């Protein structure tokens, strides 16, 4: 009788490292195919339309990039915390706080020149997101409160704050009841690249990825972060201040997600409104994890997930619910994590003699 058996690999082969993710994604789409078929849609045509919606034209690609930017930034933010084994799942809230603070600056100081206003908005976005990350950080660092729960809870608080402002004090009187603030002054718009909707947030995401990489790999502070992330006991033994590192990393992690929020209101919506994020902060967790926390891979994965979002929006006109995109996202994650087993182990068939 042949029996399957997993044997631990001594090292991950390069081939497996490339093949396993690709196969996993293919399997996820096969899974979605079955799902679409039984929902009464033509899977082939649905996928074609999704592809066209995400990559089919200059406009499509620019839309994909527009969605990829906040995903990449939030992904970079959470990846920093994940490096320290701090489970910051509060990027969604940090994103909202960043958007809120930047909007506050833009709405109250709209007369300033762009050279003054934009940096102030950046600062406000980073600070607000940072504080939102630092709250669970401080609770964790000094009182050992589980940051997973606190950071998650603060998401709802942040989203409700935004709701409160756009339904209440900051509501545009001429919005005919829609939950929006007035438009920012043009000085508060992030410059775009060419004539597309793609804004310089793209460049910022690239810069932040490079900075994160260099800081983690080559600076003393990055070294300390890596040590604390792997073993807090070893960090204390090396004389590092573990609590301060936890606090600081959560602050920066939240700050980067806050920047993403600032960039979204300043570059795309040009106002604060309800539902500014279709769950960027949550999807970013998947992005960071799939990229194995490598900053450059995060950029690539964010682009793919941006495409999935845009493709999903585009088939809504075709009658397919957006939920199918969430199913696909889930399936991709599911198969990739499952694929990890084959990356770490080898499947062999062993012959077992029957008694």
């Amino acid at each position, binding site marked *: 009788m042949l029996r399957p058996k997993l044997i631990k690999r001594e090292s991950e082969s390069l081939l497996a490292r490339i093949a396993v993710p690709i196969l996993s994604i293919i399997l996820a789409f096969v899974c979605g195919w079955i799902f679409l078929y039984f929902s009464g849609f033509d899977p082939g045509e649905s996928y074609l339309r999704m592809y066209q919606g995400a990559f089919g034209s200059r406009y499509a690609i620019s839309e994909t990039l527009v969605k990829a930017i906040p995903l990449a930034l939030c992904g970079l933010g959470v990846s920093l915390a994940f490096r320290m084994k701090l489970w910051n799942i509060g990027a969604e809230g940090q994103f909202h706080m960043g958007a809120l603070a930047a909007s506050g600056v833009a709405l109250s100081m709209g007369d300033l020149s762009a050279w003054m206003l934009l940096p102030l908005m950046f600062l406000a976005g980073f600070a607000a997101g940072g504080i939102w990350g630092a709250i669970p950080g401080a609770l964790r660092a000094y009182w050992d409160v589980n940051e997973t729960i606190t950071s998650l809870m603060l998401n709802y608080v942040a989203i409700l704050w935004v709701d409160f402002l756009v339904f209440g004090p900051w509501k545009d009187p001429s919005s005919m009841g829609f939950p929006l603030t007035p438009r920012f002054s043009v000085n508060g718009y992030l410059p775009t690249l060419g004539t597309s909707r793609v804004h310089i947030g793209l460049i910022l995401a690239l810069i932040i990825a490079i900075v994160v990489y260099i800081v983690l790999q080559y600076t003393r502070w990055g*070294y300390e972060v890596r040590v604390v992330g*792997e073993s807090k006991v*070893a960090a*204390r*033994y*090396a004389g590092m201040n573990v609590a301060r590192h936890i606090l600081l990393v959560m602050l920066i992690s939240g700050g980067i997600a806050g920047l993403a929020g600032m960039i979204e209101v300043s570059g795309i919506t040009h106002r604060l409104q309800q539902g500014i994020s279709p769950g960027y902060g949550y999807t970013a967790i998947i992005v960071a994890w799939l990229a194995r926390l490598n900053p450059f891979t995060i950029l690539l994965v964010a682009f793919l997930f941006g495409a999935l979002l845009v493709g999903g929006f585009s088939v809504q006109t075709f009658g397919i619910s957006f939920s199918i995109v969430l199913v696909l996202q889930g399936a991709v994650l599911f198969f990739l994590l499952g694929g990890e087993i084959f990356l770490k182990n080898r499947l062999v068939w062993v012959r077992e003699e029957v008694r």
Partner: protein
Amino acid sequence: MKRIPLVKMVHINKAFPGVKANQDINFRVYPGEIHALLGENGAGKSTLMSILAGLYQPDSGFIEVKDKAVRFHSPRSALSQGIGMVYQHFRLIPNFTVAENIVLGAPDAAFLLHKQDIEQEISALSDQFGLEVDPAAIVGQLSLGEQQRVEIIKMLYRGCEVLIMDEPTTVLTPREVKELFKIMRRMSDQGKAIILITHKLHEVMEIADYVTVLRRGKVVGEDRIENLNEKTLTNMMVAHEIEYSQVDRAKPSGKLVLKLQDVQVPGDQDYMAVRNVNLALHAGEIVAIAGVAGNGQKELVETIAGLRFPSRGTISLDGEEIQTLPVKERLRRGICMIPEDRIGMGLVPNLSVMDNAILRNYNHETMNSGFLLNYKKISTYTWKLVQDYNIYLSSIHHPVNYLSGGNLQKLLLAREIDQNPRVLIASYPVRGLDVMAAESVYQILLQEREKGTAILLVLEDLDDIFRIADRVAIMYEGQIEEVLEVNQTDIDEIGALMLGADKIGVRYVETQAN
């Protein structure tokens, strides 16, 4: 009359990634025999016995019990054939009573437990084999020796006829070892077979009837104990003779370096882990702290290194008080430490050898240029350590977990000694190392002693103490009562003090009063 072996393992092969743990091994045990399975760490003893206990399946080969071929899929199927193993780390539930632990998972346990019946059965077994233990006691409150007895009874309760004991004496005090050996003898007298996995020669000479020696996954020798002596066994184990380094105790030690006065340290729970400890450490001497693990040794050395702070008392280095200084400052003043947890505290798992080499001096200007770490210099530095201390590795970029235990310890020693310590603390420096690796660690420590470093070792093995230490401080329940010159004491005296012998009378009276 031809004797039938209780258990026969034939042509056993077992490979793990990168290692052939067992190669074509034949092994037999007869009823009433105490069979020692001897070998260095990594020789394949535990693998072979895990196969016999049903934990692993062999790649090829077969097992016979009383001349009948069997196949084990799990420890439970091995137990059903009367084979049970007592692991080095006990598998007991601390909050349960002895009786509850013993019936837990027993294959024929009734759905409703009859407490009295079970306790009676246990008492009967205890009497039969001299295993004293109270069935109603909570396991978490028992000593390690008593817990071991519970494990043994657990196996006997399940009808075990072959009892495998994995390094059973590691956690015991000398007196408990003697008791264990008596129990083992009594079990063998009543027809049970006992397999003793060990790397300690004197234990084999003392208790075994028959010895099988493993080296690198193969049987390299087996014979009745009468035909063997320690020397022939050593030669079988390591394939060549070793010259043991010796400490020269005639050399007088230097001036006072480290002084602890009335040091009191709170433990992790609500108790005092270290109580009123006084200790003096001189240049060029090795002081060993002996004691059963968990008597405050860990807390004491961590307090000296700056990882814990005393609630009372002073620690002075060259006459200056340091008890409030942080780790970094103590490092700068030359207090270096090799912790008990090599990977986890001493070294960072998953980080490269290079990153680990600078764990204690990454702040030093020679490792940095501006606010960037200078990896070119770090790599040169790491290679220097690797070469100076004969550390075997394939790449300094690989995660440190790829190194063997001996090389990990050498890396730790290299890194700490490179800081030019005034005081070098090492906890269990040779634990888990094979004879060769342990020997090179001793040599490094003795060289440091020659250089005039004050060395404090936490040791558990009495043989180690006699080999390397000048003086020995016995720690019991957080206190150091006696500091003895090693060449004016003996194993029995240290063993008794480790158990708090001078206090036993007092404690007995206290419990009577309750």
